[in-house]
């Protein structure tokens, strides 16, 4: 059974916490330490962002982090090196690592070659926010051949038939975008987010995680009962920016979220 399948099995008992970090931010050498700290603080899956010059699904926080990372010399090959290093250590054996990135650098690298090299480095799955199922034929073939899980996205305005299509295109789970908008921590979640997740639950056959705009333990409590897992990204980058010790700041927030996810009552089976 794959790492992702294992992790999803745990999600029947509690929502998974899936923190996001931009590779190469604030420094290239920091990324592996940040990931280890997140896992140490209870992260169930890790999402690593591959920086892109034109991240049009991202809000100001991740845009700025991407710009810094590219300025630091972060490359696609460099991201794979980081994953390889992480897998060489013991603490991450069981934790799925997913890469998030825009499609152009992947096309440039070569989809087949990228999928094979990513899988060999220890990557479990890919999230490509500007590649809807209609454009993803070659990408899905390349991922399937390499044994990588594809994670497609859906949004509150995604019609029912497309929810089914996205669900079908995703290998193990899909990613629900909590709002019609870009990434970034928001004060409060839209009241309709839970409705959206309930709608997806009625249509999708596979599990799904929810992300975009999630930042607090309170939001984990609200969304936890309605999704297999919760992605937190911009809030972690904000926490890093505001702290003189980014690694501890990230560990602290992930630990809070992870504790909230382990509270009783977030799953009916409890």
């Amino acid at each position, binding site marked *: 059974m794959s790492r992702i399948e294992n992790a999803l099995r745990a999600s029947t008992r509690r929502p998974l916490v899936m923190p996001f970090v931009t590779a190469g931010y604030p420094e290239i050498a920091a990324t592996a330490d940040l990931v280890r700290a997140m896992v140490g603080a209870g992260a169930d899956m890790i999402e690593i962002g591959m920086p*892109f*010059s*034109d*991240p*049009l*699904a991202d*809000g100001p926080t991740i*845009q700025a982090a991407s*710009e810094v990372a*590219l300025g630091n010399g972060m*490359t*696609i*090959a460099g991201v794979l090196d980081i994953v390889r290093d992480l897998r060489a250590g013991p603490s991450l054996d069981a934790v799925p690592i997913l890469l998030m990135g*825009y*499609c*152009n*650098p*992947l*096309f*440039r*690298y070569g989809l087949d070659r990228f999928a094979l090299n990513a899988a060999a480095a220890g990557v479990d799955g890919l999230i490509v*926010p*500007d*590649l*809807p199922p*209609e*454009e993803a034929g070659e990408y899905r073939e390349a991922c399937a051949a390499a044994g990588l899980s594809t994670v*497609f*996205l*859906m*949004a509150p*305005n*995604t*019609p029912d038939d*497309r929810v089914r299509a*996205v669900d079908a295109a995703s290998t193990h789970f899909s990613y629900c*975008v909590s709002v*019609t*908008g*870009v990434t970034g921590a928001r004060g409060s979640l839209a009241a309709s987010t839970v409705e959206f997740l309930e709608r997806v639950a009625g249509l999708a056959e596979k599990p799904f995680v929810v992300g975009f705009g999630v930042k607090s333990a309170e939001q984990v409590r609200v969304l936890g009962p309605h999704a297999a897992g919760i992605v937190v990204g911009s809030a972690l980058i904000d926490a890093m920016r505001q702290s003189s010790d980014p690694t501890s700041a990230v560990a602290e927030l992930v630990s809070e979220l992870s504790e909230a996810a382990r509270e009783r009552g977030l799953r009916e089976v409890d």
Partner: protein
Amino acid sequence: MNTGNDGRFGPFGGRYIPETLMPAVKKLEVAYRDALGDPEFAAELHLLLADYAGRPTPLYFASRLSEEVGARVWLKREDLLHTGAHKINNTIGQALLARRMGKKRVIAETGAGQHGVATATVAAKFGMDCVVYMGEEDVARQQLNVFRMELLGAKVVPVSSGSRTLKDATNEAIRDWVTNVDDTFYIIGSVVGPHPYPSMVRDFHTVIGEEVREQMRDLGEDDPALLVACVGGGSNAIGFFHTWIDKGPRLLGVEAAGCGVETDAHAATLTAGTPGVLHGARSLLLQDDDGQVQLAHSISAGLDYPGVGPEHAWLLETGRAQYVAITDAQAVAAFQRLSEIEGIIPALESAHAIAQLYVLAEKGELRVDDRVVVCLSGRGDKDVASMAAYLESRES
């Protein structure tokens, strides 16, 4: 007019966009097809193009220019349109569609500011809220157009990310659209973006080529032998070329070579780019080995873009059109020369097309009886301040 295809131009085109926008582009495609079949839509568009925008634009025989380059040269005077460039052909069309779809808010990206002005203009006319995204660098070099947009009631948002030019303004407009997709219509200013934009924007501009064909006939002339137009995203060129896309004249697109195609400061995407995805479509792209989009450079803000419309990439690949590049210095010389000998101050964008005539003349590729039509896509009023600064800096 026709949508022509399923959004594919050979291997180019498509819809590489966030899921949130997929329902919006699909609805737009349906609304556009529906409008194409509606005679009332066509009649209203035609009336507005005539009475509001000033179509048909003249086809002017440029006698002194003809003499200088040694061919018979006509200028298609899109510079005489309301707001000063071809851009309004498209913004009128898209604003009519926005109204038809019940959208009360329109957004746009702009480089030189011409598309921003054309969008702000139709938004004022139709009583719609309008937000225009413009790179900070372009805001600085196109102050006149910023003021015009504000006067027309639009909100101009300076974009400070990335290269602070058209590419980044487009990213920001797409982010706005993702966030406000329910009530907002994104009026894209060129033949770029996800399907149906490249086909739809082209269709709104095909009036340029259609008029040229009729006007040449009225003059008792055969079809032109050569068409020349500048290419940034490529909207005036595609609208000009499309009448003859199947056969006929040689089609020549002129990109911005900036400081030179051999340097890293140019915007010659078709000349020097590689296949890639930017702003929702697969086309040619200026990018590095890692797939990061590179900064473009041109003295002309309207050509300062590292991507290009997917149909141009296809016309290049099939060999139906050829693309060349003109440097900043060559464009400036043509800008000055056309002003001096024809009394027409061209937009710096259009000056690239004029400059190419001189290159052709020098290479001996023009004959005195060749019928050449150049699309003079815009007027140069907006460029006067930056030209003065450029000439001053060159002298010092």
